């Protein structure tokens, strides 16, 4: 059996990959995807911990996180679309009318 800590480790690695993506990429959509990756890494941690504690709390949270991700995706993509319509770019570096 794999101890939960392995899952936690994997989750940490995935989370950090997500963080890196946010920091390194300039394409808004890819930044957004990296954020989703972070959320999923957390989900993995929740499920592993839920399993370790033997209660269902972690799974419930994962369920909620998915809902939140859905709502966020809708709004976030709406924002990206809107910004593209006005600016014709999705490069975060080019979207800096104001000092970033």
């Amino acid at each position, binding site marked *: 059996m794999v101890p939960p800590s392995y899952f936690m480790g994997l989750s940490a690695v995935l989370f950090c990959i997500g963080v890196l993506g946010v920091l390194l990429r300039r394409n808004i959509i890819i*930044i*957004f995807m990296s954020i989703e990756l972070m959320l999923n890494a*957390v989900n993995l941690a929740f499920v592993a911990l839920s399993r370790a504690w033997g209660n269902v*709390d972690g799974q419930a949270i994962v369920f909620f996180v998915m809902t939140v991700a859905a709502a966020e995706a809708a709004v*976030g993509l709406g*924002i990206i679309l809107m910004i593209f319509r006005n*600016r014709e770019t999705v490069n975060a570096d080019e979207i800096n009318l104001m*000092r970033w």
Partner: protein
Amino acid sequence: MTTAVSLAAINFNWLPILPLLVVTAGAMVVLLAGVRVSDRDSEGLGWLSLVVIAIAVATSLPMLGAQQVTFSGALVADDFTVFFYIVILLAAAVIVLMSLDYVADEGLPGAEYYALVLFATAGMMLMAAAGDLIIIFLGLETMSISVYILAGLARTDVRSNEAAMKYFLLGAFSTGFLLYGIALVYGATGTIKLHALSTLAVGASPMLLLGVGLLLIGFGFKVAAVPFHMWTPDVYEGAPTSVTAFMAVGVKLAAFAAFLRVFLVHLLGVQSDWSIVLWVLAVLTMTTGNIVALMQTNLKRMLAYSAIAHAGYILVAMTVGSSAAGAAILYYLLGYAFTNLGAFAILIAMARRGHPHETIADLRGLGTREPALAGAMAIMLFSLTGVPPLAGFVGKFSIFSAALNAGYVWLVVIAVLNSVMSAYYYLRPIVAMYTDTGGAEVVRIGSRPALIAAIAIAVIATVIIGIYPQPYMAASTSAFTSAFGKPPLATTASLHP
């Protein structure tokens, strides 16, 4: 076959949920009512929202004095909750008041606007009433997502777009940290109920500490603490002004409500582990906020940095973590809320369609052309500076006194020096208003009763709360102590005759 869900297993209680239901239902009613309303005459929807808020305030009052944990610990009904319910609702009401003209004038979609304000309010209230981490998370998201949208609601304005985008990306990013923090806390304790954290003591598992650290990052983003503040100025500047006000006040209120409830109430056991981090954060936040604010020419941007600085002052009290500090934060937030609302309302009054008029230069000569408006602005700025006897002063005073009481002398000295520094940039607009000439033309304020009402409420509240702080102080104290579920600690005695 299906397992019957026993409804009796749900610890159902109207007290904390009723105001929430009122607000969300109201939001939906506004949304529906807005179907046939054109964006140019959305005022009616605003009044409708005000009615909703009034009902919500009325329904929160019965909770006073209650001391219950309901819905399996999801919501907490106590004075702390009531305090934040009412302050958040009042802030929302003032926001709606100041939006009535603004929204119609700027051509923002009225139905969505008011509905989202109410939804965001509901999310904020949830955060204040939350009894477990997941409710905090969901409340935060409800609030944040609504505000992301609000920030971008001026769709053809590229700055608004940009604000929405930045707020969204960094908000979602910070959510990831918050969530990871929740995960690790859950991993360390096996539950997400806040009261389970209360039993933790120093020397808790490293996992918990890591979780607490990540929670700090998450909250740090929301309250705009340095170094998690990068989004604030751009977002404040770009968003429609009324939304900026909502962000500066509502979001901050809610974020601090949850922050307080988690750290100052339930994580007190491990205070020695996090207070040093907060110490550093507080110093960084105050100093950075104030220093950068010195160089701003755009008022919204300046107020953004000022908001950062004020978050720093509050973090000073968070660092202290005493009961007096908690009460001080509540009081501070109260004063801060009205002061900022007033300042932004005045910015709205300055703006004309297509001309935001939000630089300091635009204020020039306001003192002669619109003395009332300028006077109100001056009062707000003085309150932010911390000049007695305004709310801002008593707030700072109570925070400093709490910190000194706990022996954080150097922290207070740094805060005081910051306070002096802040005077410089708060005074600049005042100088512009009273000593220069030739600023922007302003629409006569007299023709906008709702806006006048919003400004008047803010001014009166700022003055009253400052001159006679006793009742508000007492309310803050009882609210904060009630969060512990214990009778108020006897920290002070009334004056001997």
